[in-house]
Every structure is written in C-alpha cells, then in structure tokens.
C-alpha cells in the first residue's frame, strides 16, 4: 500500500486561512486568501461566461445530491422579466454533517464572495442565506461579514463600479431538519411551515415567490471564488473527471483526531484515517457513513472506496455531505439505527403518509428489537415498511429514513437476531463513550453484557 504524506494528499482551499489572525474578517480574507479577486475576475466577464466557466470546471453540489452547480445556474430563464433569487442552504442538519458551520464560523467571506459571483451570473439582485437558527456564533460572524461587505462596496449598489446591484439578507431558521430540503426551505423562507413542494415546477422556474430561484449549498457557493480566481484547469487538476475539485471531509466518532480534512474528491477513508491517527487506540472500525445518516452505511470492506460521487454510488451508498461518522466495535448498530430512526420520525413534516406513518412504525419496531422484545418476523416487517416508504415519500427525508435500516440489516443482520435471541442488547453503552478508557479503574466492566441501559429513551 502506498502512503502519500498528508501534505501531498490534502488540499486546503476553503480552510487554508483558518489558522490566520481573525480569518473571518474582510482584511484577512483579502490579504491572506486572495479574497474578492474571484469577484473582480467575474465582473470582467459576461454573466453567461461565468456560468459556462463554473459548468466547465465541473463543480457539483456539496450539499448531498451532487448536481452540477453551473447547470443549475443555466436553468434560470433569462430575459423573463421576473426577479431571480439566489438562496443559500445553510440549514446544515443532516446527522453527522458538520462542514458548513465551521466554514462559516472561520471564513464567511468565501460564501459572500461566491454569492455575489453567482448572483451576477444568474442576474439576481437579492440573495438570501437561510442559516439554521441553532448556531448563534455563526450567525454573529455572518451578519458582521455581510455588514463589512456592504461597507466596502462589495454589496449594495453598483458593486465595484460594475453597475451590478446585490442585497443579501441573512435569515435565521427556527429548528426543523426538513428545511434542508430545498423546496421546504423556500416555503419556510416565505414564512410558512417548512413542507416540501410538489415538483415540477422546479425552483429554477418557480422557486421563491414563484420566481426563478437557485438553491445552493454553502460549500458549493464558497468554492466558486477560487474557480474564478485560479481557473477551471486548476480546479480540474484535483479529483476525477466526473468529480473534480476539492471538498471538506468531516471525520467524527471513534477516531483519534476528528475534524475537517479538505482533500481532492476521491480520497479514501483509509487514507484519511491513516494520516489522522486512525480509529481510536485499541479499537477497530465497525461501521461508518460516507455522507450522513441518510446514506447507507459502510463497513471495513469499504475503506478503499474512492469518496467521490461515482465511487460511493457504485459501492451502494451516496457521497452525501461527506460526513464520515466512524463507529468502532463497542457500538451497538441496533441502538445507533434506532436513534437515527427516532430522529427521522421526529423530523418528518407530516405532509405525506408514507413518511409520516412509516417512520412512526419503524420507530416502534426498532425500539422493540433494541429492548429485546422483538421477533424474527419484525426484521422482515422492517424491510417491508422500508419498501413502502422508499420511492413513495414526498421528499428525500422518507428515503433517507430507510437507509440506515436496510444497510444495517444487510451488514449486521446477525446483530439484530442476537438482540431477539438474547432478549436484550449485548452491548454496554459505557464502553463506547469517549471517556470509557479514562475513567475505568479496570477494563473488565466493558466486556460484560449489560441488560439495562438506563439512559436510552
């Protein structure tokens, strides 16, 4: 196995200035990150040329679906006489996903610059950031960065003498996972309950206020300035033909050094673990998610799957948000999946029957199995329920709810059966805590099956 040193494998672009002095300020962004040079380059081009450049660079959506960003921009009808809108999805809530929040906390100007470029390209004069409400420190920096940009003439009227006007409104959400779904987000931004809309029409035709709207993820938009400034060839020099460029991988869970690792698309979990100190000392990998809880889980068999859109897709999952949640052998997969299932049931918006009712019954079955009261028939019932949700729900939330269940049954069916046969969970939750190794006087408690877990709802 060839092991390249981390400094050759990693490619910090968005994260390159996070250790500078006050990287969230306009001064640092300009002096240390070539800040707003991408905008200057864009304003020298025709809007359609900007769209073509981003399309040719091959930038794909970093929020989960991987749709080509430039193509989304191109779908906006021009000369239609309607206002156009850009809405940035900063509702980062997919379990395991933690890239946009640290990015906005440390480098909010990369998003703002990207928004000005994107708005110029799609001919939009009012753009919005829909930030989840539960992150006040990030809201603070984003509000301040927008104010700085106005004061510097980078927002407002006649930006840098180009004749182009743009206002940005920072909008804080109020707690609802479903608002990460783009049409639910638009309803929420219109002051309604966040429920997804029927498509078509797609947002590009009838989005915010029924006007042509681009909805992009934070990281997608923040990646645009570097493409404008350094060029599409530079961007394409990283990653693969179909998945070019750099991206933030978020490593979390039972690892020695959780955190943000910005690398070319196509890096593997094995490479990321090897450079970052691996699974926590004395333990081994059991299962992991490539891109959040809605992406089917992987095991140690998948350590060498290239983490790009095609590679992960071919291996039976989805790249999603590149939220690499790593769980070691102390983790009960039934407990993990039960908790995720409870999350989906809690967050189901209630609009469609398969998701609303289906997630409710999935929770009942999962809890029953976890507590040792399940039967073999419950396992088939789970799969049957999943079959009736997947592809039949109104939006991707319902589909996502089935992923952890079907994938865990595929890889760990015997563990489900063990819960049924032993009438209880064979795992000790204390062994999987981060302080498990620190507080134990001796290790023998960690191997004893514990019948009562106490803290599980």
């Amino acid at each position, binding site marked *: *196995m060839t092991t390249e040193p981390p400094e050759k494998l990693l490619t910090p672009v968005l994260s390159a200035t996070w250790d500078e002095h006050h990287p969230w300020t306009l001064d640092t962004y300009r002096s240390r990150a070539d800040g707003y040079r991408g905008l200057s380059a864009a304003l020298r081009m025709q809007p359609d040329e900007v769209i073509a450049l981003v399309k040719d660079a091959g930038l794909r959506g970093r929020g989960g679906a991987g749709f080509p960003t430039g193509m989304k921009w191109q779908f906006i009808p021009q000369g239609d006489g309607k206002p156009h809108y850009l809405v940035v999805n900063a509702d980062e809530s997919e379990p395991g996903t*933690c890239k946009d929040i640290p990015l906005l906390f440390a480098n909010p100007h990369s998003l703002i610059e990207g928004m000005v470029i994107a708005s110029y390209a799609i001919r939009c004069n009012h753009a919005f950031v829909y930030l989840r409400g539960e992150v006040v420190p990030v809201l*603070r920096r984003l509000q301040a960065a927008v104010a700085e940009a106005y004061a510097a003439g980078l927002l407002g009227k006649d930006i840098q003498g180009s004749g182009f006007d743009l206002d940005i409104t920072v909008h804080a959400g109020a707690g609802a996972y479903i608002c990460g779904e783009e049409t639910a987000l638009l309803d929420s931004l219109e002051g309604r309950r966040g429920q997804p809309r029927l498509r078509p029409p797609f947002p590009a035709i009838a989005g915010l206020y029924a006007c042509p709207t681009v909805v992009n993820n934070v990281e997608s938009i923040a990646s645009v300035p570097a493409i404008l400034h350094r060029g599409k060839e530079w961007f394409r020099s990283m990653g693969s033909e179909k998945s070019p460029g750099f991206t933030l991988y978020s490593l*979390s*869970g039972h690892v020695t050094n959780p955190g943000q690792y910005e690398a070319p698309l196509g890096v593997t979990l094995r490479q990321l673990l090897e450079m970052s100190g*691996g699974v926590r*000392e004395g333990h081994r990998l059991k299962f992991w998610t490539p891109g959040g809880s809605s992406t089917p889980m992987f095991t*140690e068999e998948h350590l060498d799957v290239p983490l790009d859109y095609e590679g992960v897709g071919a291996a039976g999952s989805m790249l999603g948000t590149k939220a690499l949640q790593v769980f070691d052998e102390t*983790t009960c997969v039934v407990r993990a999946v039960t908790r995720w299932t409870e999350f989906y049931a809690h967050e189901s918006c209630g609009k469609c029957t398969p998701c609303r009712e289906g997630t409710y019954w999935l929770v009942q079955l999962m809890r029953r199995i976890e507590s040792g009261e399940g039967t073999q028939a419950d396992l088939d019932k789970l799969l049957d329920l999943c079959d009736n949700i997947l592809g039949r729900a109104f939006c991707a939330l319902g589909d996502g709810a089935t992923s952890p269940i079907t994938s865990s049954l595929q890889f760990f069916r015997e563990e489900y059966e063990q819960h049924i046969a032993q009438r209880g969970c064979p795992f000790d939750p204390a062994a999987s805590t981060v302080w498990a190794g620190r507080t134990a006087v001796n290790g023998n408690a960690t191997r004893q099956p514990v019948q009562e877990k106490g803290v599980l709802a």
Partner: protein
Amino acid sequence: MTTHETEPVGLGMPALPAPDFPAEVRARLEADAKELIGRYPVARSALLPLLHLVQAEEGYVSRTGIRFCAEQLELTTAEVTAVATFYTMYRRKPAGKYHVGVCTNTLCAVLGGDQIFAELKEHLGIENNETTEDGAVSIEHIECNAACDYAPVMMVNWEFFDNQTPESAKRLVDDLRAGHTVLPTRGAALCTFKETARILAGFPDERAGALNASGAGGAPSLAGLRLARGEALPGTGSAKVVSPRHEAEKSTGSGTPSSHDAPQETSLSDPAHPADPADPEGSEGR
C-alpha cells in the same frame, strides 16, 4: 358524583382574543418589526424573524406575541400559530434564562451524550423540557447540531460547548445557576435566552468582543490544515488503521484487568511496517 363539578364546563365559546402588548412595548416592537419586514420583498417572509422577536420580548411565544405577528403581517392568529408550532426553537411556555441542549442524536449519544443527559437530569432534578425552580436553566435533548467532530456536544442559548463530559456538564449548569460568567468553547460569553432570541431575529450582538470571541475554531476545525502544513496531530506517531485482519494479535487490548497499564502501541504492533528488519515476525507473540 361524577367529576364534572371540578372541571370547567365548556360553553362552546371561542377563547377571547389575546391581550395586546402594553403601548410602549408595542411601539418599540413595531419599529423593530418594520425594519425586519423591510428586509424582504414579501412581508410574510419576516414571520420567522418576528417570532424570534416576540420570543426575545417574553422568553417564549405567547398568544400576545402571536397576535402581534399576525397584526404586523395581516395574517390570522391561526396562520401564525400554525407556523410557530412547526419549529422547535419557539417555546410555547415560559422557560429558563439559559436553554441547555444536549445532543442525543446517534453520534453524540454513543460518544456519551446519553450519559450526559441522564446525569444532568438527575443533577438538576428535572426532566426533558422542564425548568429548574429558580428559573435559571431549562434542559432539552436536541438533534444533531453540526458539531460532530466535537462530540459530545451541548448548546447553551445556542452557543457551542464542545467535548463535554458528565462532570463538565454538571459544572456548567452549576455555574449558570450561580450567576457566573460562562464562556462557550465556540461563541461569545453567554447572554440571556431573550437576548439570544433578539440576535436570531436579525439584530446583531452589539457587545464589544462578542464577534471575535473564541477564535476560528478548536483543534478539530484545524486538524486537516495542520496536517497539510506538515505538522503532526496527537496520536499520529505510529498509529494506523486497526484492520480487522490484525484483530487477533491485538486481542489483549482494552478489556483485560491490566489494560490500563498495557504497553503502549509501537511500530512493532503494526506487522505491515516492522521496525526491525532482523525480526520479520515482530516480537508480537504476546
């Protein structure tokens, strides 16, 4: 006798309209509302900010607050109530000055969030969504808050408290109840829940130093950048992915009575990379 005597008899009358805010409060809030509404092309888009605004006034979204929002946007109170009850951040009853959320979504739960939440409830003597008698602290188990690389995570008034333990969590709520200044790991010195709600409504935090407090992020945020700069991360010396193929050779790891003083892992414990070419088998026969 039946229990009818002790229960109020419903006469089918609709509830009376909620009382209005006092005139001076209303005048102040109307000025704020006007500013918020002006930020959107369509007034109704300001509903979520307006709900944060009335929550900033009263600490929760009351019927009075709902009436105010409805009047500002020319909606019915039913329409506003439908929205207010959809989102989890709007409180429906008065609660604590400090809103303490413990993440119990899968990753944080497994890494210790469940234990933290259980011990915190016991320590405070309250259950989920309840408030301490002194009105200082409300607790709630929350969903993933986008800080998984800092798990287990807690939020107080939506500022980050990273890498928590049951002990640190209990110390934190004790400090809050004692009125001490509490600093998050990422975010600014805590303000009250009402003040937080005002920032969420869209009125920036004016406190000196609030913006720059706590730097750009902790070690996890900078982990990849440090490696890319050629620096070493803690524990990366000889560590490799522990492959299941080598599990048998490592079976004396944690779990034995003396595991706490077991030999530290060295390059010799990685058969794929023997340190001593003269000893191809390694000396791992333990």
